[in-house]
């Protein structure tokens, strides 16, 4: 069944604010991830849209032109048509091989959590994760689904260079650094697979709402699969 956003989603639960002359925010505090994902897809049909940043309870909309009358843009968002039978595209599951021997903070993380390494690895990989958000840096994936008891503090001093493909825990969140960059999260493993390719269209194959499963591999398997330059 096709419904406009105003009816598919309680209008009272939607609001907006300006961010800049060309950007505004749509707030959806009560939406589930699947709804945000679906609404983000239909937003792509808006006129003069540059791109959107879908987050936990908001979607940022950047336009290619100044927003003269934001109320009218909000109105056109409410008029967008949503197919409420299907909950967005079917869920995609990615299996990412990761090598825990290449996680420089694994020892200290396990010590902090008072866990045996093997136990931590087994339980970390036993979980399924979901891409909550993409951003902060090119290709950085924020993943939901970290077991609450695996929360560890961020590093007191951020690393200047985190290797590409690092899997990390920062507070109650876990994530993946696609590119070498500075970072303050604790590095527990590394994947040999490249998750960001500037020459590919789109540059990332993992999107918000996708499910992620991690599979532990040995350093030898890492080397055989390694796509990173360093």
């Amino acid at each position, binding site marked *: 069944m096709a419904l406009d956003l105003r009816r598919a989603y309680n209008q009272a639960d939607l609001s907006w604010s300006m961010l*800049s*002359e060309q950007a505004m*925010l749509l707030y959806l505090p009560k939406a589930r991830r699947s709804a945000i994902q679906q609404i983000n897809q239909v937003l792509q049909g808006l006129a003069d849209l540059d791109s959107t940043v879908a987050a936990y309870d*908001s979607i940022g909309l*950047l336009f290619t032109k100044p927003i003269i009358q934001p109320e009218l843009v909000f109105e056109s968002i409410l008029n967008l048509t949503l197919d409420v039978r299907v909950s967005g595209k079917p869920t995609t599951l990615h299996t990412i091989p990761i090598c825990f021997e290449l996680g420089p903070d694994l020892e200290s993380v396990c010590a902090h959590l008072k866990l045996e390494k093997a136990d931590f690895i087994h339980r970390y990989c036993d979980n399924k994760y979901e891409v909550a958000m993409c951003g*902060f840096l090119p290709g950085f994936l924020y993943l939901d689904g970290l077991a609450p008891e695996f929360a560890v503090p961020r590093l007191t001093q951020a690393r200047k260079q985190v290797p590409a493909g690092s899997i990390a825990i920062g507070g109650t969140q876990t994530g993946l650094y696609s590119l070498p960059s500075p970072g303050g999260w604790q590095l527990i493993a590394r994947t040999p697979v490249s998750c*960001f390719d500037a020459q590919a269209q789109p540059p*990332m194959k993992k999107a918000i709402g996708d499910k992620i499963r991690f599979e532990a591999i040995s350093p030898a398997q890492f080397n055989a699969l390694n796509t990173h330059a360093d």
Partner: protein
Amino acid sequence: MPTNSLTILKACPAMSLQDAGRRGVAAWGIPSGGAMDHQAMQLANRLVGNEPNAAVIEMALIDVTLLFHHEAYIACTGAVQAIMINEQTHLPNHCLNVQALDVVQIKVHPKANFYYLAIAGNLQAKRDFGSCSTYPLARLGGLDGTYLKKGDVLHWEVSAQKIKQSKVLAPHLIPLYDAASPIIRVLKGPEFERLTEASKQQLESLELYLSTDCNRMAYRALAKGMEASDYQITSSMVVPGSIQLSGPGQCTILMRDAQTSGGYPRILQVIAADLARLAQLKPNQSFKLRLVDLAEAHQANSYWEGVLNSLRP
């Protein structure tokens, strides 16, 4: 195709190729990028008859020396004090003719940061997502995704159109960088209401000071007296110009290579027309804020569009 070229004899930190930046990339966490002082870039391009957002060389903080292997029409704008062609002094903000084997030294202005060299024609660069703006973290744009360095050779194709060598900027378009405490116009940000009543009331009288921690991603500034009820938000979109308040008096002003999302309250937003001026402020320099509404911000941006149109070849 035969091209003209120059060699960089002396480079500066973060010397890069820039244009207006990338579109349609925020969803992947890629910054828009682009010239820090986009207005100076656009003026340089207009002086040599290029499209305003054509690729230029962005330089900063120290002098740069270039050896031209071919004749060219060039213009320098932004933080430039003088241009020496074979040790002869020339004024910035002019279209100048250089000959093969000329050595061009550009002297930086002591009171600002970024300066630009436009060359009449089409500067060759690696384009990623439709832009040659250099972003080393993801190896985007530039010659090979990195900053320019000594020994690099830049190529350009000459445009067919006639160049007016005498072209010069009107005096009112040449920034002096001498205001003691320049005023930067801002919009209310999405979390403006988190400011305390006292902070809101004294917002326009506050002196902000830039820290030394300033780069293409962000400028940090101290704003004593600016306080909020809470310094965390659920991660959400940010754009260049967003002013985040991460603690009492701790402002982070996001610049061209900023991240695409952040977790600090977005108290204010620098209007697009004033982000260029802000980019030119020096560490420890003070500045003030003036709150404007959306209509005034649009007006300021249209004024700039008008300036660019008036300089059409």
